């Protein structure tokens, strides 16, 4: 693809009727205008770009996409099956548009869970320092596009020392073909607070559409955020997402990302340990088959001393699918006593399945502990024999071992109903494999 084509594509994307309403807040409009400018400068990446070497997104540029501006007519009965029993608050977005009739926000002076456009005028002081400040949209075309379309989104603000026991469920539902949606989430955990946020992408239709999501999460001193991300888009969907997380002193960020759906999906997660003693655990699972491609790029940036990071990323690849993992661990000068470990484990179920895994360590401090490793393999013959010798058929034995491989990640999700549902999904998907 050449630049002319690519910018033509971007021009078409930006010409979504009708134009977005201007915000009464000047800084909000400025942020959006800046992003529009960047979209004008940047181009859609090709496989000649290092970060997109294995992920050819040219099929995306061939779609004629429209962003959706009209409210959905979905009723609770249509989507209740996706609700989570534990979640006390829920925000639902249909094709990117906030659906108040399906949502149960919280705005009673404690934790704030609401849609961004409602809250932005009421809470500008809490939002302005974070919205668009953590994500690097200036050099990332998809983050820039999302920011150019910035209008509404999910907002979670956890006040100082508030511990929110019930998880917050952010549910993004795709219902229209050839829709482009730009989900935006902002999570601000003030000092000493704790919250679990579930970002959940589902589809009610199987035709092509495009989800381009941006999530920003800011943790103040001693805050604790559990972030669960589940991408179960439709089989023809394109899902591109960028998430930026910033950790202040002694804060803890735990995330589990699961990619099951989409024809092509790409998730960039950048975690900045911006102050001393911050800790993150970022785990991932991609379970794909047929001709799916799932790409996960993560970067853990140890900027200050005494940071701890843990990462386990797993891919289960069947059919002629292709999984990509690129995990960078950066240890900045002076970030002494950093303790980091990263593991990429990959299971290929067929001869045509493919995985490209690239762990990257960039260490500029001398007193650090960094371990990383990557494995790519098939199901173990001894393990299969063990199960068969207990009466299980070859197919059942394979399914069980495949399931077990993925279940290790699923088990780390701190929400029981979601965990059970995903275990079931994984079991069904492995039974369908290859």
């Amino acid at each position: 693809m050449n630049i002319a084509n690519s910018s033509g594509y971007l021009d078409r994307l930006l010409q979504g009727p009708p134009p977005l309403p201007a915000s009464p807040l000047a800084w909000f409009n400025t942020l959006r205008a800046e992003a529009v400018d960047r979209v004008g400068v940047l181009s859609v990446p090709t496989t000649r770009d290092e970060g997109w070497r294995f992920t050819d997104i040219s099929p995306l540029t061939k779609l004629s996409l429209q962003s959706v501006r009209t409210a959905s007519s979905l009723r609770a009965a249509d989507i209740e099956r996706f609700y989570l029993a534990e979640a006390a608050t829920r925000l639902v977005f249909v094709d990117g548009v906030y659906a108040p009739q399906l949502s149960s926000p919280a705005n009673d002076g404690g934790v704030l869970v609401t849609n961004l456009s409602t809250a932005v005028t009421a809470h500008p002081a809490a939002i302005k320092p974070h919205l668009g400040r953590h994500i690097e949209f200036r050099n990332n075309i998809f983050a820039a596009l999302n920011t150019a379309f910035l209008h509404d989104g999910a907002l979670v603000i956890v006040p100082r020392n508030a511990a929110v026991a019930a998880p917050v469920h952010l549910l993004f539902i795709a219902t229209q073909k050839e829709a482009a949606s730009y989900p935006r989430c902002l999570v601000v955990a003030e000092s000493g607070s704790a919250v679990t946020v579930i970002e959940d992408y589902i589809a009610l239709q199987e035709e092509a559409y495009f989800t381009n999501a941006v999530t920003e999460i800011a943790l103040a001193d001693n805050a604790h955020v559990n972030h669960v991300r589940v991408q179960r888009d439709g089989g023809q969907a394109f899902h591109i997402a960028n998430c930026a997380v910033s950790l202040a002193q002694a804060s803890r960020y735990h995330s589990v990302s699961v990619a099951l759906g989409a024809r092509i999906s790409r998730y960039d997660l950048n975690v900045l340990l911006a102050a001393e003693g911050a800790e993150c655990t970022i785990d991932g699972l991609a379970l794909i088959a047929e001709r799916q491609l799932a790409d996960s790029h993560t970067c853990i940036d140890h900027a200050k001393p005494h940071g701890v990071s843990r990462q386990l990323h797993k891919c289960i690849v069947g059919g002629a699918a292709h999984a990509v993992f690129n995990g960078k661990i950066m240890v900045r000068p002076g970030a002494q006593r950093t303790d980091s470990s990263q593991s990429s484990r990959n299971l290929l179920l067929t001869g045509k399945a493919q995985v490209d895994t690239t762990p990257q360590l960039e260490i500029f401090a001398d007193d650090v502990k960094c371990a990383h490793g990557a494995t790519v393999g098939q199901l173990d013959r001894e393990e299969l024999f063990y199960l068969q010798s207990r009466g299980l058929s070859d197919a059942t034995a394979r399914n069980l071992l495949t399931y077990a491989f993925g279940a290790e990640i699923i088990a780390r999700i701190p929400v029981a109903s979601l965990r059970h549902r995903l275990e079931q999904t994984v079991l069904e998907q492995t039974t369908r494999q290859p």
Partner: protein
Amino acid sequence: MIAQDSKTLLEVRGLCATVNAIEILKGIDLTVKSGEVHALMGPNGSGKSTFAKVLAGHAAYEITGGTVMFEGKNLFELAPEERARAGVFLAFQYPIEIPGVANSQFLRLTYNTVQAQRGKDELDPLEFDDFVREKMKLLEMNPDFLDRSVNEGFSGGEKKRNEILQMALLEPRLAILDETDSGLDIDALRVVANGVNQLATKDNAIMLVTHYQRLLNYIVPDFVHVMDAGRIIKTGGKELALELETRGYDWVGAEHEASARVTA
């Protein structure tokens, strides 16, 4: 015990097998009848474990000669899972760990699979829980092991108990215990042996594969076979195991060679 009305369960004739084109089994003959306990002894590398795995159907071994009949059926026509359903059970020397699968889930799946194949009733999770807890008492196992992943983080002794627990659940006709005594301290050995003894009936048979006589103090064999270089070179009663314990294996080999020369 050796009984008058016993039935032949296993009939091995001239069994030869290779792994990676190396011949490991070089003509094994063995008959096992219901109610019997057989001990298969011999030095390292004599082919004991290979024999056990070949009977269970491990794909790494190629059968190059001989026959094995199990209750009148050609064992080699059955896939490993079909052998298990037909009643062959192998307790592994090194049981496999399966992180991510709860032991209770695994045990119920295998139990129900085998039950269904045998035309018997399956158990739902609650029924199975009661059932398996009863069986665990036999092996003095803590029920906590149900909630943990299969064999993950189990000690050597705990893994072996879990193997015998599976034997208790699957009720095999022929149980082959491959070095079930290895890695067990004396208390664990007594518990495991006691469990095996309680599972032995006049209708099933047990084959113990072991290096040491120690296990045979607790599970008393009717026959002791000595394997060497892929063959059974001597068969005797339980007193043969004691003799091996004091004299080692070398004399058996020497005696076998001498008799082979005489016959030649």
